[in-house]
Structure formats: C-alpha cells, structure tokens
C-alpha cells in the first residue's frame, strides 16, 4: 500500500471510531435526560394529586406545579439540543486533529 493509502485508512478508521464514541454518548445522554423527566413527572403528579386531595396543596398551587413541570420539560429539550450541537463541534475539532496528525505522521514521519 502507498503512503497515501495508509493515510486514508488511518483517517477513516479513527474517524469512524470518533463518530461512534461522540454520537453514541450524546444520544444516550439525551435519552437519559428526557426519560428522567418522564419518570419525575409521573411520580410528582401522583404525589401532588394526593396532596391536593388531602388539602395540603391549594388548587392554584397544584396548577403552578403542573405548569412548572411542563416548563422543565421544555428546558430539558433545549439542553439536549445544545448537547447535540456541542457534540458536533467536538467532533469537528477532533476530526481536524485526525486529518492533521495523520498527515504529519504518514508524510513527514513526525
């Protein structure tokens, strides 16, 4: 194989590994953040309903908590969006490094 072929193989191998590492982690993290919100919402709504029935929460207080829970879901969604963007930026920066490092390594022997 030529030096160029070796360079291409190295870049492809490391690039694929980088894709797997970066985006798998990001996908799992985003999923966990959203699933936790669903779990929290279910448990909290159950508890608030009981407190409302017992008279420990007033109706307007119950309404506030429910509105807040919807807002928290929206905030979590935005955060996962930013994590996705940050992952893309991280991938881009590391990919640049792979191209450059391999070029130095294969063509200049550094």
């Amino acid at each position, binding site marked *: 194989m030529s030096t160029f072929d070796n360079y291409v193989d190295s870049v492809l191998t490391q690039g694929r590994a980088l894709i797997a590492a970066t985006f798998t982690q990001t996908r799992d993290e985003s999923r966990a*953040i959203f699933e*936790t919100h669903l779990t929290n919402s279910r448990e909290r709504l159950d508890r608030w309903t009981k407190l409302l029935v017992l008279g420990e929460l007033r109706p307007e207080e119950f309404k506030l908590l429910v509105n807040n829970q919807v807002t928290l879901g929206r905030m979590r969604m935005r955060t996962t969006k930013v994590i996705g963007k940050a992952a893309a930026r991280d991938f881009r920066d590391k990919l640049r490094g792979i191209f450059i490092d391999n070029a130095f390594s294969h063509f200049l022997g550094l």
Partner: protein
Amino acid sequence: MNRTVTRLSGWLLGCCLLVGCAIPLANYDQRAYENATSLKPLALAMIDRSMQRGSWLQYNRALEDLLVQLAAAYEYANGIEYNNEAAANWKDLIGDEERMMLGWATLWSNCGDDTECRVSPALATEYKIQATEAFDIIICLEANKRQLSRCEALTRPTGAGG
C-alpha cells in the same frame, strides 16, 4: 489508489462540510455559569423562607432583589451571540404569574400584610425540587458548551423528592 480515493471522497465531502461550517453555538461563558451556581442557593433559601408565617412582610424586598438578579442573568445570557437556548432557559426559569419563580412569588405576594399567611409547606417543598432542577438544567447546558459531560443531576430521578 482509485478505490481509496473513491472511498475517501464521499466521506471527505461530508466531513469537509462539517469541518468547514460554523456550528451556531456560543462558547462556554464563566460568568453565565457562575450566575447560575450563585443564584441557585439564594433562590432555594428564599423558597424555604416562603413557608414561614408572615414571611412576605419580612422578605419581600429580598425577593425583589433576587428577581432583579435573575433578570440580569437572563439579560446577560441573551446578549451572547448564538446563545438562544441558554437565554430561553433563563427566561423559563423566571417564568410568569402562572409558572416558575414569578408564579411562586405571585402566590407568596398574595399574603400581603397578613402576619399568619405563608406559602403552604407542601408547595414550598415541591417547588424547591423543581427550582433545583431548573438551575441544574441551566448549569448542565453551560457546562456542556465547555466540554461534553454527563449531567448526573438531570439523569437521577427526583420525582419522589430525593
């Protein structure tokens, strides 16, 4: 060689698009991070106070100061380029008369001059859990702009009040 170039060309095209294009995301901002971490304990302490009888008379000025600081944190985040999500999260944390900080403050302010009045302990307890989560969401977002990191606070169920 030709096979190699063919293999690489499609991959390179996609990568070059990604490498060459700007990703619309603000850089990590230390001040924005510190706004969230410093205002969080102040807000949680204020929520605790709201369940004390007659607390509105004693703490309404301090609450006003806190709300001004939260508004300033929002304005700061909103002034940073490509920071739409973080700014929107600050705005949501502040809320309005029916949700989040302003919603809770509105219920508390209904006490007026009544020295026996307070926010119900159940509301204060439950809202404190939600406010903690809201600040953690903002902190997590800012931290991930610096370095991809796990947000333990957002993936640990706290539905049961833990």
